[in-house]
């Protein structure tokens, strides 16, 4: 979900990261309904695949990927993040996805 620089002066490209993460989500839970038994496996696969795709970009960054999947029940959900880092090199991106029965925030 965000990146951390560990050396060279390259800045984080949020657009590229969000595109690859969105593709991962679509590939794993696109078209499926919320299933409590499978949600563990879905979150694990989403974070693993997203991380693999981000690493394939070949940038000199450390990565932290978070994924939250919530069943749609009329309840509200808010997420916020606050970061203490070097704004020139580090950045974050958030991807929101939903279908008929669940929300996914990465």
């Amino acid at each position, binding site marked *: 979900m965000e990146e951390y620089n560990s050396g060279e002066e390259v800045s984080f490209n949020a657009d590229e990261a969000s595109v690859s993460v969105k593709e991962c989500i679509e590939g794993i839970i696109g078209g499926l309904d919320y299933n409590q038994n499978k949600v*563990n496996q879905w979150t694990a696969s989403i974070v693993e695949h997203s991380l693999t795709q981000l690493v394939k970009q070949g940038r000199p960054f450390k990565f932290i990927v978070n994924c*939250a999947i919530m069943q749609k029940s009329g309840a509200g959900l808010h997420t916020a*993040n606050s970061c*203490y*880092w070097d704004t020139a090199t580090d950045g*974050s991106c958030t991807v929101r996805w939903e279908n008929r029965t669940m929300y996914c925030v990465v």
Partner: protein
Amino acid sequence: MTTQQPPLSQEILAQCNQQAMEPWGSRKLRQSRQGSISTLRSSLSRDQQQQQHPRYPLLLPRGFLPIESSSRSPNISNPNSPFIRRDLVALTKRFSFGGWLQGSRASFSGLPLHQPVQLENTYKTEPEKGCLFKASKVQKLVQAMLDSYLDGASYNAASGSHLSQILSDMVKSKVKEISPPRYKLVCQVVVGQNRNQGLRVASRCLWDSQHDDFAVAMFQNHSLFTLVIVHGVYCE
């Protein structure tokens, strides 16, 4: 006289170029020679001078050398003269030595520094022993904060987003106080209404597992739940 001067300056420049290729041990000499190269720059092409700069990105911001030469030689009209150049070399040698030792913040002529400070390499790849991110300590701190701040709170759609932002800033500033130096922090807060729905949060990180760590704290009551994740990442 005038016809002799250009060949002489090119010869000296060639010498300077050769000596600039010396290893780091001869730093003093090299600095003085770069000072002399700056005076020659007014008569010769800029290319040679610019070739010198990439070798020392940390120590020689481009703007400095002209200031240095102009401030040190206010009365000199012809910088190409060999005798005056030697004086300039001596002057720049003294000032450049002191200036560079003090770090890039020093301004040779006393003028305010307009260029961004470039920090030198500390050659540290690991945190000091005992200066690691202590996940258990951070977890206790964050849990205590959540318990005290959210005790008796109830979920409100209008204030939910505001609450999550306030919490994340608060947690970040508190953890910053106790986190060791050279650590970057990422604080994530999830606030939701408690209506017996299912929620799963997973996190995976690509980092140095020996020096980087995270802490999680959770709070829930009858109407809301809050999850706080704090990641501490070492900055090389």
